[in-house]
């Protein structure tokens, strides 16, 4: 027996937990079931609903959007026809950075990685013929989220819908943009103010809307390990909650409308335990730290998606298999919404075929494999329960560490979190390059002269000309006096503590551009100075 154990090589997970060759009742003897509880019961380790997917399967929401609003509208309609149950809008980088399509800095980027939005007109085209009370829509937008959310609300108005009919999510998580993804504009404090404005506005006016989706996803994609992914996301979420509480919004009302976006790649069991631990910890934080009494506020709701960071350029078809395992992890983890990076995504914006394979992967789990039959099927596994417990402790330690150093806002402003994540990314890449961390097809079973049949997404520069032409037309046909008046009003109000949402909505109704509104806010708020030390 001793000899066999000696031969076993050490297995350490990314989170630093050592894995034993076998788990027994001994490993969970301190774990009373009251700490785990049934699905739908505090602290929700096993899921937030009593019957989970038996009542309603997870929402399938592939990220899409490219070129112009009209092109995007076509793809949306196609995805809905194919059975997709939610939309997730991708915007191009100029829109994400608050630049109009005719801005010099936008050159070469208009409509490239998502849909270009200059004015309300674009959002009207994007949702033409799509009943937005029937389908929930996520908008993946951060530093300009207040503007795009205002546009979405006005589109709903124009479809004749009252605000309480609007369902969906704005990503609107600016703090993570400073850590990963990088579409920040304003300094940290005014950015936080804009987030708080949207949370407050939604809590009072659009009760079914999720105004913030806190993203561990991009933090992990930037290099963080699974413990840091959850810990940093929770620290960020807590910063938003504190901001909203300071405005007098009731914790019971709005915490239930904060959702999370997490990442799936890496060790199979570690990811599942990560989500179970995260759910349990969030329930405790909301109850104990924020004194919420509404169980809905304690439920951690998430989109858990197959992450691009796990996919490979090499032998891209292998990514279809990875995507299927990521989807399986997501379903076994009790996610509310699922999205998968498509197999060609290491190269290009997914082709229609690749996006369809991702959708089918999720549908196969729901319709063929029995994943929706019973809630938390891995609950009670000695390994999973022990791992869940260990991960929860590690996440708590990581949160406490940052709080002891002065909190997340300070750590991000000074670039500390960015450095930690970049360091982790470097170590990870070193392990891949040395072969210590195996990536099939990359550092093992590699095919040197492989034939690649990925079809590249075509970027059509003529669409840019169309976009700019439309923008110019709007600028000459709109009521420019009203544009000026609403923009100046926004400027005045930005200098006060008043909630900016109603004033942004006025600018939007007047067809002010994303760039014009951002410029006004930049004048008042200034711009973020990135700490660049490595």
């Amino acid at each position, binding site marked *: 027996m001793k000899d066999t154990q000696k031969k076993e090589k050490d297995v350490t997970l990314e989170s630093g937990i050592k894995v034993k060759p076998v788990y027994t009742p001994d490993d969970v003897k301190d774990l009373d079931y009251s700490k785990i509880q049934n699905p739908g019961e505090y602290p929700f380790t096993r899921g937030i609903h009593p019957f989970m997917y038996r009542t309603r399967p997870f929402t399938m929401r592939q990220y899409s959007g490219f070129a112009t609003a009209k092109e995007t509208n076509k793809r949306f309609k196609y995805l809905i026809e194919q059975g997709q149950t939610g939309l997730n809008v991708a915007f191009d*980088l100029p829109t994400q950075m608050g630049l109009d399509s005719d801005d010099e800095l936008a050159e070469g*980027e208009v409509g490239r990685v998502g849909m270009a939005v200059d004015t309300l007109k674009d959002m009207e085209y994007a949702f033409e013929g799509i009943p937005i009370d029937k389908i929930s829509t996520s908008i993946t937008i951060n530093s300009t989220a207040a503007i795009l959310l205002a546009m979405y609300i006005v589109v709903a108005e124009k479809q004749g819908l009252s605000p309480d009919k609007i369902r969906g999510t704005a990503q609107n998580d600016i703090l993570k943009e400073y850590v*990963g993804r990088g*579409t920040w504009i304003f300094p940290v404090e005014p950015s936080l103010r804009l987030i708080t404005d949207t949370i407050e506005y939604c809590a009072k006016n659009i009760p079914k809307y999720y105004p913030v989706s806190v993203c561990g996803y991009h933090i992990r*994609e930037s290099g963080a390990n699974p413990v840091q992914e959850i810990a940093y996301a929770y620290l960020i979420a807590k910063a938003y909650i504190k901001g909203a509480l300071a405005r007098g919004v009731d914790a019971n009302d709005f915490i239930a409308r904060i959702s999370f976006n997490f990442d799936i790649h890496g060790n199979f069991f570690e990811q599942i335990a990560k989500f179970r631990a995260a759910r349990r910890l969030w329930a405790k934080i909301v109850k104990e730290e924020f004194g919420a009494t509404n169980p809905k506020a304690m439920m951690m709701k998430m989109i858990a998606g197959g992450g691009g960071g796990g996919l*490979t350029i090499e032998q891209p078809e292998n990514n279809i298999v990875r995507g299927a395992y990521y989807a399986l992890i997501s379903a076994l983890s009790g996610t509310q919404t699922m999205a998968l990076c498509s197999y060609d995504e290491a190269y290009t914006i997914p082709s229609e075929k690749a996006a369809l394979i991702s959708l089918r992967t999720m549908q196969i789990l729901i319709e063929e494999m029995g994943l929706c039959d019973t809630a938390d099927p891995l609950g009670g596994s000695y390994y999973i329960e022990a791992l869940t417990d260990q991960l929860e402790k590690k996440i708590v330690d990581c949160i406490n560490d940052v709080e002891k150093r002065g909190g997340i806002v300070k750590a991000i402003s000074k670039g500390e979190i960015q450095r930690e994540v970049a360091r982790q*990314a470097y170590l990870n890449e070193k392990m891949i390059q040395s072969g210590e961390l195996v990536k099939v097809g990359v550092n093992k079973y590699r095919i040197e002269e492989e034939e*690649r049949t990925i079809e590249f997404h075509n970027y059509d520069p003529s669409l840019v000309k169309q976009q700019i032409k439309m923008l110019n037309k709007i600028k000459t046909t709109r009521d420019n006096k009203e544009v000026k008046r609403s923009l100046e009003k926004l400027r005045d109000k930005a200098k006060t503590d008043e909630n900016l949402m109603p004033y942004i909505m006025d600018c939007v109704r007047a067809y002010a551009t994303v760039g014009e509104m951002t410029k006004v806010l930049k004048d008042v708020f200034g711009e973020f100075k990135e700490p*660049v030390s490595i």
Partner: protein
Amino acid sequence: MPNKKIRILIAKPGLDGHDRGVKVIAQLLRDAGMEVIYTGLHQTVDQIINAAIQEDVNVIGLSILSGAHYPIAEKLMKRIKENKMNDVMIIIGGNIPQKDIVDLHKLGVKGVFPTGSKFEEIIGFIKTNMG
């Protein structure tokens, strides 16, 4: 200049904010003994050229993941020529399709390192060409 440290400006042009790769490379080259200056995100070509002149670098490395590598490289090479910086070596890394590499070379980009390039290959290339 075999005994002088190689000075390299690592830059992130354009609006794309995915900086995992660029920060990995900056740490790698620093650990390989080079003097690394990182610009941070959202740099225009003119800002990059100015930083390169000010820091008196031997190499400019661009990280581009958005697909806009060709127009950016074209603009940068034009400025390089205008500023008579012909002794500065340009390399590009990121999400660069195989088929675009030849075109980038034609523009005057010396080395192209798509995602997944080997560490030794990148370090070796810079040292050989600067050695």
